């Protein structure tokens, strides 16, 4: 089995799903189907602040805290972003068993780095 083809297939499916979720949940957010955590009319005041002050001023979650706010339009939308940021990790995990030894080690280290970044 060609490793590149396997990676390409998984990446293609994952990207399509991630992008579809991102756009669909943005619709939910922007049309107010779910109330956002940060009211839309407050955004112009808050998005001029640095990220840490935005978080402090709005009560926005950090780390994986957004998972607790999936009932809010803005953080449901973050789900799409997180899916796009997870696809590469899944694809790497899929191809590790298919790679020659040296490259399998590199891919395994890459997975560890991506996991580290996700939980930093």
């Amino acid at each position, binding site marked *: 089995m060609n490793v590149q083809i396997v990676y390409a297939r998984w990446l293609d499916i994952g990207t399509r799903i991630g992008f579809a979720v991102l*756009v669909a949940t943005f619709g939910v957010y922007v049309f107010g189907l779910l109330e956002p955590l940060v009211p839309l009319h407050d955004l112009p005041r808050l998005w001029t602040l640095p990220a840490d002050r*935005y978080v402090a001023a709005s009560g926005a979650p950090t780390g994986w805290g957004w998972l607790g706010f999936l009932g809010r339009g803005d953080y449901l939308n973050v789900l799409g972003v997180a899916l796009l*940021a997870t696809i590469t990790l899944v694809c790497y995990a899929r191809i590790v068993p298919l790679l020659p030894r040296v490259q399998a080690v590199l891919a395994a280290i890459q997975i560890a780095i991506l996991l580290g*970044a996700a939980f930093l």
Partner: protein
Amino acid sequence: MEWWIWPIALFALTFLMGIVAVLAGVGGGVLFVPIVGAFFPFHLDFVRAAGLMIALTSALSAAPSLLANGLASLRLALPLALVGSVTSVLGALIGLALPTDVVQIALGLTILAIALLMWRAGRADHPEVAHPDALGAALGMHGVYHDAALRRDVAWQVHRTPVALFVFGGIGLLAGMFGLGAGWANVPALNLLMGAPLKLAVGTSGFVLSVVDTSAAWVYLNRGAVLPMIVVPSLIGVILGAKIGARLLRITPSHVVKKIVLTVLVVAGGRALLKGLGI
């Protein structure tokens, strides 16, 4: 001003940006961060996060066909992406920790350097690599791809791998710190430094980008810097614009577009620099 004006303005701007980026052969992120950072009211933290997501999504969308057609090489990409992703995480952490005016100045200087690189850098379709280096050979960085234009298989190998790993570390740092994407640097590094054929360099650059930007994207996401109201309209605008750009590619003189892009980069980079200096 009403909140909804900004996502609409972002969509319109990024739609144009998507067209121009394809015509000029650059990534959307490298235009997005300096232009939106200079002319929109969003804090640079959110602009950099959005730029990174644009570069990431564009790379994720392009990578499957590049990999399937053999125009991106996993063997070549794995070590480079590994080094780049470590430094991109560091870059993102440093970028979020530094004072905004310092980041603005560094961004301005980086954009001006990118404009210079784009203006001066040459390209070689099939650089000669007489002797692959030991590290590249040990990591299996060689192979064959099919060049449809030449209608033949092209064998490739690389040299200067240790230097290239160092360079990709630097590129990853800048990509994470400024959310610029990194095709502007990946392609010359793969092509001119390592000796990879140009088509393979372009394809592999996109794949490396998808891994490097993923690592940095998590840092921005975890720090609360990813605002969907900035990210999503921009992403949709760039992707739709890129589709139109691809259709216009055959009838538009690329050297004219490239001059326009260089001018825009100089203006936006200069503005970022002046903004950082408080002028």
